[in-house]
């Protein structure tokens, strides 16, 4: 066992910069400590270990942020916006005027990752990522603090995502363009990507307009073990075992991984054909063991005659977008920016 472990450690070290390796390995080890074999989770220790940052109404690097509690759910949303050009307006949060009356300013609703269990909107890694997203895409970003498992199982995260979508759609101060509406995109990494899909599916059914989905190595799965899972198990920070644990913690008790939440185009899934599902940008990291499920998802969208673009980053590991020290990061930002600003 020890021998194969060394090999695993060395492989991941070869493909990511040193500080990225330290960051993701640190998470991996902390998460190993937090997950208990009986399926419970050490939430107290997790909150203590999680590095959090406050919002900042004074712009830093051209982006400012503030927190807003949705009164209906009691959950926090953190909103990021590009800083106003006029310095005199810095530090003032305007909840009356729309983002613009002439231009279209995309609003990206972002669901952070963490396999449904970890992290929050105010986790440092996600706050930093959302800031970069807002700055690069010149978009408003709303990062949603959804309820996490195992304390809150399916469908809590989807319900919270839906509530966030309705909330965002109804904010006049997030409107833009000559048609004065909120131009919404859904985005998320890992479990956040999974949430984005399911919220978009509901939006399509209930005819709420979502302009696009951005799924960053989304978390999907299924009962059978795919080739990529077997080949990459334990090699790049992630193991099949931990994936199984998170699904057991999220899915209703007694359910298996072919549940449509986990496997939307699997034996219990359904086609989205005929629905007004948003166009999707699906980003797959070539060293992510879940990739076969993500590729199956892309196929499922195609079979439902939905518009999907696959961005396959061959040498990327999970979490490549946390630190801007690799080409995959810049590639991703450019793709997302084009995706939400199609006319630029």
């Amino acid at each position, binding site marked *: *066992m*020890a*021998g194969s*472990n*060394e090999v695993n*450690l*060395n492989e991941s*070290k*070869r*493909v*990511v*910069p*040193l*500080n990225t*390796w*330290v*960051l993701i*390995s*640190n998470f*991996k*080890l*902390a998460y*190993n*400590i*937090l997950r*208990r*074999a009986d399926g419970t989770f*050490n939430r107290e*220790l997790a909150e*203590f*270990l999680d*590095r*959090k*940052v*406050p*919002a*900042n*109404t*004074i712009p*830093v*690097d*051209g*982006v400012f942020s503030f927190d807003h509690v949705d009164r209906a759910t009691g959950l926090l949303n953190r909103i990021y916006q590009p800083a106003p050009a006029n310095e005199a307006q810095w*530090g003032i949060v305007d909840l009356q005027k729309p983002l613009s009356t002439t231009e279209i300013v995309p609003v990206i609703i972002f669901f952070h990752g963490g396999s449904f269990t970890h992290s929050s909107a105010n*986790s*440092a*890694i996600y706050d*930093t990522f959302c*800031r*970069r997203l807002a*700055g*690069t895409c010149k978009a408003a970003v709303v990062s949603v603090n959804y309820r996490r498992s195992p304390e809150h199982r399916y469908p809590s995260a989807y319900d919270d995502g839906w509530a966030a979508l309705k909330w965002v759609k109804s904010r006049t101060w997030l409107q833009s363009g000559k048609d004065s509406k909120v131009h919404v995109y859904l985005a998320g990494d890992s479990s956040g990507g999974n949430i984005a899909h399911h919220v978009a599916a509901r939006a399509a059914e209930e005819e709420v307009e979502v302009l696009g989905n951005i799924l960053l190595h989304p978390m999907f799965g299924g009962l059978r073990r795919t080739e990529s899972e077997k080949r990459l198990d334990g090699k790049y920070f992630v193991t099949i075992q931990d994936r199984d644990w998170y699904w057991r913690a999220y899915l209703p008790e007694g359910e298996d991984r072919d549940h449509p939440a986990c496997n939307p185009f699997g034996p219990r899934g359904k086609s989205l054909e005929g629905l007004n599902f948003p166009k999707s940008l699906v980003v797959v990291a070539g060293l992510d063991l879940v990739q076969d499920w993500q590729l199956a998802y892309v196929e499922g969208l195609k079979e439902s005659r939905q518009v999907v673009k696959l961005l396959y980053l061959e040498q990327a590991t999970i979490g490549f977008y*946390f*630190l*801007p*020290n*690799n*080409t995959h990061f810049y590639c991703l*930002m450019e793709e997302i*920016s084009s995706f939400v600003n199609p006319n630029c």
Partner: protein
Amino acid sequence: MSPYDSATSSGGGSGSSASSSAKPSEIDGLLAGAGYKVRSSDLRHVAQRLERLETAMVNSPVEISHLASDAVHYNPSDIASWVDSLLSELHQTASMPSDLPDLPDLMVAPAINHTVVSDAAWTDQDAPQQLNQFTVVTAMEEDSGIRLVHMLMTCAESVQRGELAFAGSLIEDMQALLTRVNTSCGIGKVADYFIDALRRRIFSPQSVCFGGSGSASPYENEVLYHHFYEACPYLKFAHFTANQAILEAFDGHDCVHVIDFNLMHGLQWPALIQALALRPGGPPLLRLTGIGPPSPDGRDSLREVGLRLAELARSVNVRFAFRGVAALRLEDVKPWMLQVGPKEAVAVNSIMQLHRLLGSESTRNSPVEVVLGWIRNLNPKIMTVIEQEANHNQPGFMDRFTEALYYYSTMFDSLEACTLQPEKALAEIYIQREICNVVCCEGLARVERHEPLGKWRARLGQAGFRPLQLGSNAFKQASMLLTLFSAEGYCVEEKEGCLTLGWHSRPLIAASAWQAVPDANSPLGIVNHHSNHNAL
């Protein structure tokens, strides 16, 4: 201009381990943006430690639950310390496989070859670009440090004026600024703690003052105190100096009684017991009364300490008796609880306790007067008083804050010399609690009401005490203690018969000794009723 410039400039240079122009103390800016403080030069070492931890966890999966439930996790931002503390936990609880060497630079055999291939194995993109960013970060850092201090003062001023919303927004700005500063040492570290304390004062004072050290478990307080004792010489100096004075005061007496106002683990007393054992003419009968908070879990921790000390005394043939007095506050102790005998020579030992009595608003029969009153009635041969040499009891918040900022900056500077972990980390938490009490609390909850030597002189003089010279012996021995235990920078000074220990000419702790002035109206020995000494 690339749209990613804003992305790369946040936090400055990345962790390019290949770049040798990185200053050793420079923290990795990208990891800082993720909430972690790791020096660029430490990255490789930290990575190795992470690998060791992973291997250790793989080899002893049963112990992982112990890491979650029993281990104490310190500052998770400092990945290096966090990983090390987990590794030491695992070493203690599991039997480590013997093939893991102790030297941190080696790893399990096959892996070594890969890392010797070194920098090629780590893909560092855009290395040349980052070199420029390093110099920019340095200048920014210094500037940011100064800005932080200014912002701290502005924030404290707003708090004093009651402008909490503005103060709150300054907190956010300071926290953002902190990410550009090295917070593992220097002004960055101190600012980090003070920003935290201000934040608590503004947003959640109740959790500090009524959930804080006042009601933190005595066990926790003892652990922190012990690590503070180990990490820097202040407490050792206090014990050493007080013991010397007590030893001299007990000369010629056969029955002696030491009253310790804060027993903790009784760290001060083994040295005294041993010194008494070696006394020419033989040791006296030693009684020790230790005051401390009651143990919440049914343990009698005072008694446990007493038993250990008794065992030591027995081993050096000193007749010894111990009594524990459990009290939440010093003002709750009544002299009859101490059971002082008529023929005993009494020494009262107060290490950083008297200032806790200064919290009451009333001037008539204030707790400090009451306590000093009954101490005087005991007519002790000596009262040793050790106090923080600082003016943290001023009524104006801004004055207190400014004084505390300089005092604790100096103290943190002096801690830099300590390399022991986790002593240093826990010593910092010990200091942090003091800072929080000074900055966040008011009224009775604020117990850290440090006053400088000059004020204590006046107060004790008024209460009927006169100073005893600590003597040149004490000075010489304190200086010697420093050379044995500590780094350059600490200095002992003598000030009108009292000794202070400080860092680079700023005294941080003052030790003095006192005796009751004989009162013509009352007989020597015990007075059973409380007389009013205010007339003196």
